[in-house]
């Protein structure tokens, strides 16, 4: 990060070019010290993260060694297993080996396909329903019922209805992940200031520009919260779905390890699942902060709505 160093006050230069350049260098100096301040704060935040997680890891390690149990190996053992089993691949694969990549790829593929479909469907329907109270009236009981059905309950039925594994997984994910997106989009669109909508109508803004330039940005914070929840559900359903009649994927690998009584492997397989969850969460957070800041929204809370 390039920084303009705070200039020593050069009276002759200032006198020669007048008070305005003096003010300009003062502003630049302020901006630099502000950036330095931000960088400092970011470093501290990262340090706290590292310290906190390391402390937790050390505590688990100590506990596992003091009270050894076959079922809860110390983190160091799990780490060793991971290094021996997974970190054997070529550098261009991030040193990850084929097996891990295969299962990881399968899970990520299903999760993203299902989630994307849920998002597209959910936002489209949500906008339509958000704009039309009449349509909402018709559809409301169905939506309320649909979101109350735990998607897991449909697994046995889907198992029979969709013999193709991939389709089955994706349909299940969509079934569960669409509701937060749909509901939050409806809420977001409904919450748009009517004065704004009237202005847009008076200005005869075309439908595409209205959608992309007004509706979506105005409803964006609420929709993004829905996307976050929906992604978490998508991950959950992917893992669950892979525990039923799958032949690949993280859920399958986890169950497989359990059936072989390989406890270290079981704990190890939780790691990529946790990493996926965290990555998705972080990606959406970053997206929302960047996108919303650009559109003038304040930083969204870490809330579930």
């Amino acid at each position, binding site marked *: 990060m390039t920084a303009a160093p705070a200039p020593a006050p050069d009276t002759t230069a200032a006198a020669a070019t007048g008070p305005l350049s*003096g003010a300009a260098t003062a502003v630049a100096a302020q901006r630099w010290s502000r950036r330095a301040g931000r960088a400092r704060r970011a470093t501290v935040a990262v340090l706290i993260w590292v310290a906190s997680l390391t402390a937790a890891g050390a505590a688990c390690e100590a506990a596992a060694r003091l009270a050894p149990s076959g079922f809860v190996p110390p983190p160091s053992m799990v780490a060793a297993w991971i290094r021996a089993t997974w970190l054997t691949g070529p550098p261009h694969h991030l040193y990850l080996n084929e097996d891990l990549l295969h299962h990881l790829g399968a899970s990520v593929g299903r999760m993203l396909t299902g989630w994307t479909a849920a998002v597209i469907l959910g936002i489209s329907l949500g906008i339509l329903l958000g704009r039309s109270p009449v349509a909402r009236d018709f559809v409301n009981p169905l939506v309320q019922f649909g979101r109350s059905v735990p998607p897991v309950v449909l697994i046995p039925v889907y198992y029979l209805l969709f013999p193709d594994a991939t389709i089955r997984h994706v349909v299940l994910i969509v079934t569960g992940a669409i509701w937060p997106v749909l509901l939050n989009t409806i809420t977001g669109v409904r919450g748009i200031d009517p004065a704004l909508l009237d202005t847009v109508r008076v200005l005869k803004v075309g439908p595409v520009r209205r959608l992309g330039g007004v509706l979506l940005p105005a409803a964006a914070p609420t929709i993004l919260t829905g996307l976050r929840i929906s992604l978490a559900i998508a991950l959950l359903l992917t893992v669950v779905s892979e525990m039923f009649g799958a032949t690949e994927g993280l859920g399958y690998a986890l169950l497989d390890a359990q059936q072989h009584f390989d406890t270290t492997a079981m704990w190890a397989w939780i790691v990529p699942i946790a990493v996926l969850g965290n990555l998705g969460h972080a990606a959406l957070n970053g997206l929302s902060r960047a996108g919303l800041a650009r559109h003038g929204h304040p930083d969204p809370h870490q809330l579930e709505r």
Partner: protein
Amino acid sequence: MLTLDTLAHTYRSRDRRRDHLALDGVKLTMSAGEMVCLVGPSGCGKTTLLRAVAGLLRPTGGTITLDGQPVTGVPDGVAMIAQNYANTLLPWRTTTANIAFGLRPQHLPRAERRERVAAALAAVGLADAGHKHPWQLSGGMQQRVAIARAIACRPRLLLADEPFASVDAQTRADLEDLLLRVQREHHMTVLLVTHDIDEAVYLGHRVAVLGPPPSSIIADLPIDLPADRDQISTRENPQFVALRTEVARLIRTSGQEATTRNAAAPQRTGA
């Protein structure tokens, strides 16, 4: 009873260049039973001063002495009413419960607490609004509840931070008279901050003028008007007019001085 001695406060910012010197060398004394009104332009540190007296803020310079004891942290027997009354009432409690909330730390016997609450409610004219919640009351009534809560504690010092700035003119007149009556009845010591010159002259035994930042007391005028004030007759009293004109002039000249001061030294960072 209350002494502010060369009170100063600087708001520090993350980079030292943007420190804001709000108060500088404020000197003020108050005796028991006095109502002192502090006037000044917006942004002149009036709220900073009150928060420092209330112990909610640690000043960076100077001392505050209350009844001989220095103020470090929140002292006993100080109550405050503020402009944003709605924000200081607990919305999930009824009016009675809100007033009782203010009394709880005093650990009074229940009967006495109930009595004080009822008396306070009666004093502000809300005797039958005890069971209502704040959202069921108008702005003026909410402010009365805040006043009731303050007087139920029998404070030795009542601080008022522009308490009537957010109500309409008629309600404002009623509330001013309410405060006046309560103060005279209980000989309460009141430090009231306002930007309304007329209000300051109307209510106070003394009016102190706070200058623009870095603020200090630039004038301290005794108000020699009859103790019985009336919204109409007092305000047309020529002495009232003379006093408020004097205050207005003081504020204006101090404002002009500050502007010329700032223009001459552009590198000094302001608010």
